[in-house]
């Protein structure tokens, strides 16, 4: 699915995933509405992006949050922020909100910028926050252990950044990996310091099916793992989960027959793709998957869970997936 980077950039401004307010009218009359068309994110060109620098983001489970714009955030003051956040965490521990039971850990904070993770030049560079610990009992020069990381990013978030007044920085997507207690401490510091608000970002089954269709279309090598969809069956006394695994080549072959225009996906194509998978399952098991709730999608590109948990598996598609997640975060903020 490669397209020339220049062509990808001009098309980016037209395509959009979301359909506007959830229960409001789509813009324009039916038939002329542009909603439902999205450009398949092309793999980011490798000239300025060094895959090694973002390799540590892969294969980790990230919990998603949407963040409202930050007030008076400055890229130049990252070291100061690290120091202040470190002091805040130490103060919280003093107050008795201990995060680790048993051994007292010294938490060191590092805040850095990830300039590679952006879609357009208007996007803010991603900000990475890392908490590492060193046990005071161990020798001075022993290795520090990373206990928590979180990063803010904005990929192709022009829709939000254009409409925001001066002094506000738009970094609508926040991803966290590590103990929930650290996430809430770091989150509350950011909320107090920059007057923003964090909100868990859940992914609806509709958006998950978009991801399944989009990521199936991406080119992957022969050794790719199977595509897996997990469904949760409602209204049963005991919860029941159905896992449906599809060979990646079969899934791609099916998607190739469905998708008409390369580089564009419509809601109809996603529906047809999912309906084919559902009717195939029904033919064998007599179960209507369309009456269940799609809760998890796993493809060789990435895996996403409806509770707002994502795992990136391929660095070349990292920016593409982030673009999609940024859009979901922005629609939750607005």
């Amino acid at each position, binding site marked *: 699915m490669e397209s020339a980077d220049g062509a990808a950039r001009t098309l980016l401004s037209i395509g959009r995933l979301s*359909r506007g307010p*959830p*229960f409001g*009218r*789509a813009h324009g009359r*039916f038939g002329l*509405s542009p*909603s*439902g068309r999205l450009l398949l994110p092309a793999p980011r060109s490798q000239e300025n992006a060094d895959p090694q620098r973002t390799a540590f983001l892969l294969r980790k489970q990230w919990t998603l949050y949407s963040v409202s714009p930050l007030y008076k955030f400055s890229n130049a003051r990252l070291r100061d922020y690290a120091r202040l956040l470190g002091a805040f965490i130490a103060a919280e521990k003093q107050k008795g909100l201990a995060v680790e039971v048993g051994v007292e850990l010294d938490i060191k904070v590092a805040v850095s910028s990830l300039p590679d993770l952006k879609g357009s030049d208007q996007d803010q560079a991603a900000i990475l926050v890392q908490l590492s610990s060193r046990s005071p009992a161990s020798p001075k020069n022993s290795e520090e252990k990373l206990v928590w990381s979180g990063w803010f990013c904005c990929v192709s978030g022009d829709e939000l950044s254009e409409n925001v007044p001066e002094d506000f920085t738009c970094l609508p997507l926040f991803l966290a990996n590590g103990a929930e207690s650290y996430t809430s401490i770091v989150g509350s510091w950011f909320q107090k310091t920059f007057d923003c608000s964090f909100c868990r970002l*859940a*992914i*609806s*089954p*509709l958006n998950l*099916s978009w991801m399944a269709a989009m990521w199936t279309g991406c080119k992957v090598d022969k050794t790719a793992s199977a595509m897996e969809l997990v469904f949760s069956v*409602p209204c049963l006394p005991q919860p029941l989960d159905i896992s449906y695994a599809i060979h990646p080549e079969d899934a791609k072959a099916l998607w190739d027959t469905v998708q008409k225009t390369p580089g564009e996906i419509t*809601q109809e194509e996603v*529906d047809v793709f*999912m309906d084919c998978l559902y009717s195939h399952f029904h033919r064998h098991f007599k179960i*209507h998957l*369309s*009456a*269940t*709730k*799609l809760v998890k999608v796993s493809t060789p590109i990435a895996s996403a869970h*409806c509770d707002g948990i994502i795992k990136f598996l391929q660095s070349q598609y990292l920016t593409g997936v982030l673009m999609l997640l940024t859009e979901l975060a922005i629609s939750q903020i607005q």
Partner: protein
Amino acid sequence: HLATSLPLPSEMDHLRPRIDLIAFMIDIKSKYSLKNVEASLAHVDASFFLGKVCFLVTGVGRVNYCSVEMNAIWKLGEVYCSPVLFCELELEGIRVATAQRLLRMLQICAGHIPGVSALSFGSLMRNSADE
């Protein structure tokens, strides 16, 4: 009268009273319910679509459980010229309010409200939804 799909079994035809209003329920959490409604619509006589049909979309309280695309529902309302109502069955207040709305619509469709016909009411609802 409740049915899970149409057509209704023909054995009961002679016992069944006149049908004044058909409310198709679509659960936004289940794509299957939309497909079911679309299949059942084919079995409805054309005269019902003059104000005696409405679409009731349930489960709208939780956006994150949405499996049905809203455009598909709007399209259904437009193609079949019938109003689309939204409700959340889990909340008692909304449940009661929706029941009252349906009851009012039923009274109009059955001809119990003088001066208002099903057709005029239907077009009134459609025009206000378009704004």
